[in-house]
């Protein structure tokens, strides 16, 4: 009986000690997180990070570096994450230039904007693994996995890659350059699959490529709305849309000027069985 009581005391002391240890490690002296990776950032700080990447991309036009940086955030689909962020920023009234930068990077990732020509980047590590030397090195090794980067795989003298050259800033094409946009297409769209009253706008530049981040102003008798192309990259980098209200007349123009589309109203379409529904309008602006 005495031995049994002694065993219980031993177990209780062990459990008590374990509890004290846990209290110390989880409450009094938890592991301090001082070397966090961008992936662990809170969502709103990830947005800041993406905005900075987009701003840097707008300055340098270096898509591969932007792609490598975005990969640090661990988004399953970086382009989609950027597009969603651009929409959130628009909704919260963020600076339009910043929104455009984010939208343009989203489109560039999906091929809407041509990236810089590939550059030769000597590196001496064949493995695309992150190192703790610099993020710039990390970027370079990530880039090594891209097929367009010329990588020297022969030199393996040191374990850490060292960049010896960096792509220099080349400016990203901006959608506001060039001649004013002209209205080149205005078509009624009767499609029951589409939302009723859907106004679809496509913006194309002089080289017949869709333009992301272009600002469009929609006005009606007592209102005005600014929308941007490229926020739905799955529908086209120069695509934007807007839901029209029945019996309201709209005027649509590019913020940079050019020919407006006036007197736009949602048409009435006939479905099978003589029932009617509200159709849509598709408008195309193009630089001459």
């Amino acid at each position, binding site marked *: 009986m005495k031995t049994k009581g002694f065993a219980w005391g031993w177990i209780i002391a062990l459990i008590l000690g*374990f509890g004290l*240890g846990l*209290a110390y*490690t989880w409450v009094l002296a938890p592991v301090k997180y001082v070397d966090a990776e961008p992936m662990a950032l809170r969502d709103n700080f990830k947005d800041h990070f993406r905005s900075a990447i987009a701003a840097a991309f707008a300055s340098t036009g270096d898509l591969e570096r932007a792609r490598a940086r975005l990969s640090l955030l661990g988004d399953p689909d970086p382009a989609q994450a950027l597009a969603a962020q651009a929409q959130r920023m628009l909704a919260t009234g963020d600076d339009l230039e910043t929104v455009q930068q984010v939208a343009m990077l989203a489109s560039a990732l999906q091929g809407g904007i041509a990236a810089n020509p590939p550059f030769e980047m000597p590196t001496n590590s064949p493995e695309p693994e992150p190192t703790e030397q610099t993020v710039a090195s*990390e970027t370079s090794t990530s880039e090594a996995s891209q097929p367009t980067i010329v990588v020297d795989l022969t030199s393996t003298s040191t374990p850490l890659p060292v960049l010896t050259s960096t792509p220099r800033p080349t400016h990203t094409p901006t959608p506001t350059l060039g001649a004013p946009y002209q209205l080149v297409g205005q078509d009624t769209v009767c499609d029951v699959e589409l939302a009723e009253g859907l106004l679809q706008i496509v913006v194309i530049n002089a080289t017949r490529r869709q333009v992301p981040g272009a600002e469009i102003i929609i006005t009606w008798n007592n209102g005005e709305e600014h929308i941007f192309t490229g926020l739905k990259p799955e529908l086209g980098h120069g695509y934007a849309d807007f839901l029209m209200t029945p019996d309201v007349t709209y005027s649509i123009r590019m913020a940079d000027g050019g020919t407006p589309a006036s007197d736009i109203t949602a048409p009435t379409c006939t479905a099978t069985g003589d029932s009617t529904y509200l159709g849509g309008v598709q408008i195309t602006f193009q630089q001459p």
Partner: protein
Amino acid sequence: MPRWLITFIALALGIALGLVYGWVIDPVQYTDVTPDALRIDYRTDYVLMVAEAYHAEQDPALASRRLAVLGSQPPAVITSEAEDYARQAGYPGDDLTLIQELSVALQTWQPVPGTSLP
């Protein structure tokens, strides 16, 4: 062996097990960290992004707002620390030049009273 000694050993063993479990096996998980906890190389790359953007925008106020995300230190100090790390880590000269350009701009820049940082 005295009973108190065995109890003490059990207690010490329990504490040791608790420490190993809490620090190694299942440490406190941080999933929503703030940028000031970023590793120095990531912080430096963030500063480099801001420097790249600044090179085109030439807007020290905007650069300062972006750098404020990294913590409460003055933007010039944040940039200076990044410059030191970039130099030690052997960043390419072009990247160093960009960070230096931002560093110099922020050292001479005077914020307008009343402007808020995020």
